[in-house]
Each structure stands twice: as C-alpha cells, then as structure tokens.
C-alpha cells in the first residue's frame, strides 16, 4: 500500500514546477501596453511578436477587450496605445491622437453564376434579417436565399453587423463558417448563397457585389466611396512616448503593412 501512495510524488513535483514557472513571468521595464478591439488584437499581437524578435529587450503586451475598453484604457493611462476598430466620434477624436494602421473592407459575395450584380445596404440588411428570402425579390432567379455568415466573435462579422445590420440581428438560420476561406468555399459551391468576407481575400472564384452602386475595391475603400469599410486605429492620449512611437512606426513600416495586407486588410494609405 505504501508503495502506491508514494507514487504520485514525481507527478506532484512536476506539477509544482510547472505552476512555479508560470508564476515567475518577469516584468520588463520597457513594456508598451496595447489594449482594445478584439478584431485588431490577433494581428497586432502577431506584429508585436515580430517586433520583439527584431528588437530583443523591447516588450509589447497586447490585450483584447473591445474598442471601448481600449479607448478607456488609453485615456486612463492603463495602456500606452488603445486599439479601436471604428471611426472615432467627434468628441472622442478631440481627446486622442489617432493613427490609422490599416483598413478592413467587407465584400458581399455570391456564386459567380448568380445574375445579381449589385445590392443596396438596405437589401443586404433585409436578407440577413430574414425580410427578403428569395432572390427574385432583388432581381435574381426564383430560389430561396441561403445566408452564410461568420462565427460569433469574428472581426469581419463584427464589422458587417456594425456597417450593415445596425440594430438588427443576423438570422439564426444563417449557416456559419469560421474563416474567410471556408466561407468562400461554401459560397462558391452553393448557387443561392450570399455571404460576406474580408475584401482583400475575395479572389476570382466568387463574385463580389457592388454595394449602393460602388465597386468593392481597395481603391474604393481608400477613396471612401465604398462604404462597407472601417479603419483600424491606434489611439494615444497626447503624443505617444518613444517606446510606443517605435512600435507604431514598425506597424506603419512597409514590413508591418505587408503583414497586415497578407491577413486581408487594406493598407493605411
């Protein structure tokens, strides 16, 4: 019996070591704290990783919590940089220094054989909220519309809801996919589907619709004519400190911008 009771000791030791190691994370002095929008967070974290690899000794800590929390953190000084994934309201703009680090365009896509080429924001909202259920109501064939949406928590979904849906909710019966690629694959194979995805990754095997008469292109987003787009902002309270500025510069550098473009975003300028 004693033999058996003694046995878990190594296991317990191992566990204790792991816990100890996890607790011992060192606090660096040059930490730049970045906090805010969950849709910007994964990409900024990626960039922060690259940045720290290139500049050993500097540290960037990126926290997700939503655009509102990011603004609040930047204002209170809890974070050096706040991340925001929408335009600042005029009263907010007065409080912060803001830099656009990238733009996110949302393309509304259909099967290439779908005769519909253009929709209005109103029509798209009607479809995704269940008021328009057949393609013939918007000038297409007499087939039921198949909605394809992104999963809850996705930044593209958040952008779509913000830009198109307003206060309305996406229908529960909409099919869901977890990435731009998977969603595109579904729309490509389903003749009656409509979905939305990052503008930068549309490619040629699905058709991106004109929205409110405007072509969905990066140029349209930069010029401000294509409305289904939003900026990703870095905000600071007053001019950023030297460490924060160094990181912002890295994000705006050709290398940083290229990495963001690879994720499907549109460059800042």
């Amino acid at each position, binding site marked *: 019996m004693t*033999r*058996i009771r003694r*046995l*878990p000791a*190594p*296991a317990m030791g191992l566990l204790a070591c792991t816990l100890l190691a996890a607790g011992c994370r060192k606090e660096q002095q040059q930490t730049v704290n970045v906090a805010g929008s*969950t*849709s910007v967070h*994964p990409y900024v974290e990626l960039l922060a990783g690259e940045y720290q690899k290139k500049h050993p000794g500097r540290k960037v800590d990126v926290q*997700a*919590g939503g655009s509102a929390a990011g603004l609040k953190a930047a204002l209170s000084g809890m974070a050096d940089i706040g991340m925001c994934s929408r335009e600042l309201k005029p009263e907010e703009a007065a409080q912060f220094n803001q830099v656009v680090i990238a733009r996110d365009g949302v393309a509304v896509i259909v099967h290439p054989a779908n005769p519909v080429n253009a929709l209005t924001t109103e029509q798209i909202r009607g479809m995704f909220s269940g008021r328009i259920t057949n393609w013939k109501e918007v000038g297409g064939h007499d087939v039921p519309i*198949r909605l394809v949406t992104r*999963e*809850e*928590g*996705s*930044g593209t979904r*958040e952008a779509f809801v913000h830009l198109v849906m307003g206060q309305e*909710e996406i229908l*529960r*019966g*909409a*099919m*869901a*996919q*977890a990435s731009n690629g*998977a969603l595109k*694959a*579904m729309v490509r*194979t*389903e003749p*009656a*589907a409509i979905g939305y995805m990052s503008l930068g990754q549309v490619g040629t095997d699905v058709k991106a619709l004109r929205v409110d008469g405007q072509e969905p292109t990066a140029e349209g987003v930069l010029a401000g004519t294509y409305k289904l787009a939003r900026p990703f902002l870095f905000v600071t309270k007053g001019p950023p400190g030297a460490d924060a500025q160094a990181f912002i510069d890295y994000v705006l550098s050709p290398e940083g911008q290229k990495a963001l473009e690879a994720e499907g975003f549109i460059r800042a300028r």
Partner: protein
Amino acid sequence: MRQDQLIKTILMAVALSAILGLALMTVFIFKEGMPLIVQVGGRDFFCSSDWSPGKGRFGILSMIVGSLLVTLGALVIGVVFSLGLAVVLTQFCPPALARILKPVIELLAGIPSVVYGFMGMVTIVPLIRDHLGGAGYSVLAGSIVLGVMILPTVTSISVDALHAVPRPFWEGSIALGATRWQTTHMLMLKAARSGILAAVILGMGRAVGETMAVIMVTGNSLDIPRRLTDSVRTLTSNIALEMNYASGAHSQALFATGVTLFVIIMVLNTLAMAVSRRRMAMGGTR
C-alpha cells in the same frame, strides 16, 4: 528484486499520470465552464436556442439537439452497413476474400477526418441539394459522413465478436437443419450481441465527438432543424468554430459547451454499458 520494484514503480507512475491528466482536464473544463452555466442559469443555457455571446445570450439547446440528431443518424447508417458487413465477412464470404476485405475496411479508420469532410462537401452535399432540396449542408449530410467514419470501428469489433462465438454453437445449429441465414440471425447475432453493442458504443463515442468533418458538411446554423435537409450546428462544431476569437464570457460559454458534451458522452456511455452488462448477465443465466 530491487530492479523489479523500480520497474513496477515507474510503470505505476506512467499509468497514474495518464489518469492524473484526465482528472486535471476534467477539473479544468468544469472550473472554466460551470461558473457561466450557474451565472446564466441552467434554464436559459440548456433550454434556449438563442446563442449570441456578444450580447450575453448563451442558449445551446439547438446544438444539443443537433449533436444528438447527427449522432443518431450516423448510428442508423453506420450500424446497418457495419452489421451487414460483419455478417457477410464472418458467415457468407469465402475466407480468402474476408482476409482481404477486413484489412481494407480497417484502412478506412486511418483516413483523416478532414478528408471525409471534404469528400462529403464535394459529393454528398451537392447530391442532397440537387435531389432532396435545401442547401445540402444538413443533418443528413453529417449523418452520412459520420456513418461512413464509424463503419470501420463498428465492423471490425462486430467481426471479432462474431468470431468469438464458439464454433460448436454454429455446428450444432447447422446439424439441427437450420439454414445459414437462420443460424446467423437466430444464433450468431444473439450470441455476439454484447460485443456488437460494445462496437456500437464505440462508434457512438466517435460520432458524438467528431468535429472537423461535421463542420464541413452540416452548415452550422443555429436553428433547431425541422427536416433532415436543414442545416444544424453540433456542440463540438460550436467550440471549434468560435474558439478563435472568443474571450471572457464567450470563452467560458465554449467551455460550458464542453461541459455539456462531456456530460452527454458520460450519460450515453454509462447507459449503453449498463444495458450491455444486463444483457450479458441475462445471456449467462440462460
């Protein structure tokens, strides 16, 4: 003697660490998931289909229904074909052919689930869409793909169960003038049923837990399906779909989904095991 002792100790440590891992995982899942269930309230969590974590609504009823439906469908399809195969392989086919067929069927188990999912997406989904209507991404598509995926497990264990029936049983039955088919369905299948049930339980476990292939063919909508051709989201799909960007309460809700899945699998397995034990006991007293 000392060496003996040492090896015993090491092996025991290895064995116990596996159990420790399982225990830690269980504790972790429950620790992360339970607070949210308590906070939301069991009724709003389990009895509502309103899932929008961004707005603080966490109803997973449609996914529970989805998981159960897809699993049931997979079992119906998988078990019919597996039992058929097992019977043919053990009773009606020349041994030489069986020696080739069985490994081929077992080979199916080695194909990654994403391949099954992709095959389902490019073949079964369009077939359903063109002939049965709907979007094609459906309960039915999920059931068919899962049914094929559990085929090798269920077939192979059922074959072993049928082989384990003592030869004299079969000889006696034939000697009494029963035909091969009568012998098969009146004697062999009955004698092997506890093993066959075990096979079905294993298949069910795989079907409930499968994720990748299901995500690719069921469409993942949040409504409770009314037809077999309706799209559906399972509990596993929900976790895999939304874990990428989930944080805070949303992430807890995904753990709570995991807790639910955990409990469902426990209940199903316990139930099936209890049934099989009772059957076995009955068989023994006869």
